């Protein structure tokens, strides 16, 4: 099995990578470019898993060489699972990229990283609720402190492709139940 770590630049992909793989790492240039990427191996429940630290990208419409490599690596690994690393304090644009990857049919797990930084900015995210809306695992993490890494590994097996139409329906349901709860609270 192959797992791609994807996300914006500077969200902590490489910290995850080092946490997941330990020291068994080879670094190489993507053929024909000078953009570095790193891959390594880890064991999940006895199975050898290849982890690839993909260069950071803002979207799947590449704007520079590094982003082209990121998108090409995603498209070359149609059978890979993706860990979408999101800066929890900038969740909106992180989800934009995650949704693009979901639309292409990849099984996805979301790591809401930098939970501590987001909390410092008074941003608290209900990961369970986001998980119910998206239909894929969502784990809050603080990668540099190792928080949430075990849960993330445990949840990789639950990653599955989801339909965007289902997400839209879930989101509509979620906001309905919320407004119903508000009305109940008022009465």
């Amino acid at each position, binding site marked *: 099995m192959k797992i791609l770590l994807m996300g914006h630049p500077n969200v902590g992909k490489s910290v995850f990578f080092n946490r997941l793989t330990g020291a068994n790492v080879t670094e190489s240039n993507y053929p024909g470019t000078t953009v570095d990427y790193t891959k390594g191996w880890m064991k999940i429940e006895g199975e050898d898993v290849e982890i690839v630290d993909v260069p950071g990208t*803002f*979207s799947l*419409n590449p*704007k520079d060489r590094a982003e082209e490599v990121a998108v090409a690596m995603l498209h070359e690994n149609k059978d890979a699972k993706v860990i979408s690393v999101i800066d929890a*304090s*900038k969740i*909106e*644009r992180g989800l*934009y*990229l995650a949704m693009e990857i979901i639309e292409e049919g990849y099984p996805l797990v979301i790591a809401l990283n930098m939970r501590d930084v987001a909390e410092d*900015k008074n*941003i608290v995210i209900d990961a369970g609720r986001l998980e119910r809306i998206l239909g894929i695992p969502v784990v809050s993490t603080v990668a540099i402190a190792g928080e949430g890494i075990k849960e993330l590994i445990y949840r990789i097996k639950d990653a599955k492709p989801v339909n965007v139409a289902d997400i839209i329906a879930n989101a509509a349901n979620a906001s309905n139940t919320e407004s119903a709860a508000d009305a109940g609270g008022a009465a």
Partner: protein
Amino acid sequence: MKKKLSDMDYNEKGAVTEIESDLRKRVAGMGIRVGKTLRMVTKQPIKGPVDVVVEGAETSLGLDMAEKIVVEVTK
């Protein structure tokens, strides 16, 4: 009042009303889309980039990109 993003003053807030079509996909990944509220925080001198805050996250845009975005300024 409508203004180009590049013409906004410090601390001015507004909702994005127009983005030139060739730019739309490039800035969408940074959280800038039609209808989003943004606040201008810094403009660098000598045709430098424009910094804006969208949904609590800071982003900087080249002046040439900021010129292609129209904002309905509220205050």
